[in-house]
């Protein structure tokens, strides 16, 4: 099809033509990219220093500057941090804290997501009288400083015989994960078209049938988001770990803090940094793998219902 115009013989006229010329190095671009790059370097610096320090020997650390790359790379600090570093009388390294954290995180994540998703589903699709009052209290509860509820929970757990145990801590994580997760799932399930839900009811599916056969399969992304949110949140927790568990059950963050900030002995900065990196590794890996889903998770957590 040819181009039909009023004036088939276009005049050739002088003057500006085509794209407005811009230089790649315009002042605007230098300002934008310059700022971003400087800030990015500032953000990366601590990670770089951690890695570099953890690969140096102590003599080199005492001699040189913290930004210099290691002259002689050694993995000894990593080995020591993982298997030999001491907290108090125990000298079996961070590995114990790591396994404690795994034992805490895995059941906590599953339990909290199972409860919160069912709950959000009930709130979104099976509203009953009074449900919203409880939900409002739950959401307001998310803003109450944990310190206010610390001791009452100690009493509850002690009464149940769970104070100091991993089970107790798992319950605590489930409780404090509930507001944000319930909100997340309630909002997500509310956005599922009501017709779909009605159609399933007409087809004879009940509360559990709809949840397991319709809602669950079509909501996998939000479950992944919830999982990212919970794994990083629970892994990074310090306060609940230190309050509700005994030293042999301490999660990795608590043990890390005890190793690094212990006053006894000579400070081994390379071991400290290796231990710090080890503790940060799990959430970092999750972050780099999940990418945009992580962003979606925190955005979802941030937006109010």
């Amino acid at each position: 099809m040819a181009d039909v115009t009023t004036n088939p013989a276009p005049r050739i006229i002088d003057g500006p033509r085509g794209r407005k010329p811009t230089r790649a190095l315009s002042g605007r671009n230098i300002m934008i990219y310059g700022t971003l790059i400087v800030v990015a370097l500032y953000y990366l610096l601590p990670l770089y220093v951690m890695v570099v320090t953890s690969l140096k020997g102590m003599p080199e650390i005492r001699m040189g500057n913290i930004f210099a790359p290691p002259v002689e790379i050694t993995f000894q600090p990593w080995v020591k941090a993982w298997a030999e570093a001491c907290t108090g009388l125990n000298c079996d390294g961070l590995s114990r804290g790591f396994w404690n954290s795994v034992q805490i995180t895995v059941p906590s994540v599953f339990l909290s997501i199972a409860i919160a998703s069912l709950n959000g589903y009930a709130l979104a699709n099976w509203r009953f009288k009074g449900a919203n009052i409880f939900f409002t209290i739950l959401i307001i509860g998310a803003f109450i400083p944990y310190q206010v509820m610390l001791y009452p929970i100690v009493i509850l757990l002690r009464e149940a015989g769970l104070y100091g145990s991993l089970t107790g801590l798992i319950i605590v994580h489930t409780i404090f994960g509930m507001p944000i997760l319930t909100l997340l799932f309630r909002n997500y399930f509310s956005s599922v078209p009501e017709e779909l839900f009605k159609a399933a009811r007409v087809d004879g599916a009940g509360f559990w049938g709809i949840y397991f056969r319709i809602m669950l399969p079509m909501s996998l992304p939000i479950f992944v988001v919830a999982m990212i949110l919970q794994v990083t949140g629970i892994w990074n927790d310090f306060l609940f770990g230190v309050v509700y568990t005994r030293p042999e059950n301490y999660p990795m963050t608590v043990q890390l803090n005890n190793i690094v900030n212990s006053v006894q002995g000579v400070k081994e900065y390379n071991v400290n940094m290796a231990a710090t990196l080890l503790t940060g590794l799990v959430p970092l890996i999750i972050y780099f793998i999940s990418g945009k889903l992580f962003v979606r998770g925190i955005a979802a957590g941030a937006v109010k219902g």
Partner: protein
Amino acid sequence: MSTRPSRLFHNMNAKIASVPMVLTAMVVFLGGSIWTVVYSFTDSKLLPREKWVGLDQYERLWGTNRWLVSIENLAIYGVLSLIFSLVIGFVLAALMDQKIRFEDVFRTIFLYPFALSFIVTGLVWQWLLNPDFGVQNVIRGIGFESFTFDPLYDADLAIYGILFAGLWQGTGLVMCLMLAGLRGIDEDIWKAARVDGIPAWKTYLFIVIPMMRPVFITTLVIITAGIVKLYDLVVAQTGGGPGIATEVPAKYVYDMMFQAQNLGQGFAASTMMLVSVIIILIPWAYLEFGGKRRG
């Protein structure tokens, strides 16, 4: 005629599914808070006991230097971290919104500290700010012998050292929220402003930022809730020191409850934290929800 099932058993499965929520909301959140407030009027020491002493704990609390320092620190940290994280977060988001290349790379870099725990953050910055080996040492090494930068060992500056670490950890989140807000602005608004001949900075200041009010408020609430809970970072980075220079209320509560065996003080201090959160939340709830009803 069949009997109508009791109201209580109507929609039974949904109610069963909501039991954990009801228990958490009523027993832990509501019950726990009330319990703590009530026991703040007792002289509980190692264990809670019902010996009522009126406002004694509060009088003692406000007469304790360490608590006053904690409050002052939290105020400094809170105000500065609000201002800086909002300003830096917004500026970064605005820069990221200029149709730049490698946006994903920059976002990944700005946000990764947020994935790390406060303990990790605190320990890294403790190391970076270590006067014998960290930044100060490096700069002295290049020839500036008298250069001094040891915030963590200077009682007057230590809280700013913590602010540094806190901003590093949290600004990426603010940037992400702001960027999402900027992306939510109708593109036609930008076009209309260009046709009207309004420079970009004025468009941001007078049109876009006012339009992002809800995003700013949400961000404000999130940052504030985080500030009040500030604890792990201090424990890891300075342990409250030097001296009591970086003590914060949350740490005061923990220490009173679990180390000083002075539960009553802990309850009183945590009740003060609760009160301060309520003071922050009520105007916000009024603005957010009261405003909607009027409009």
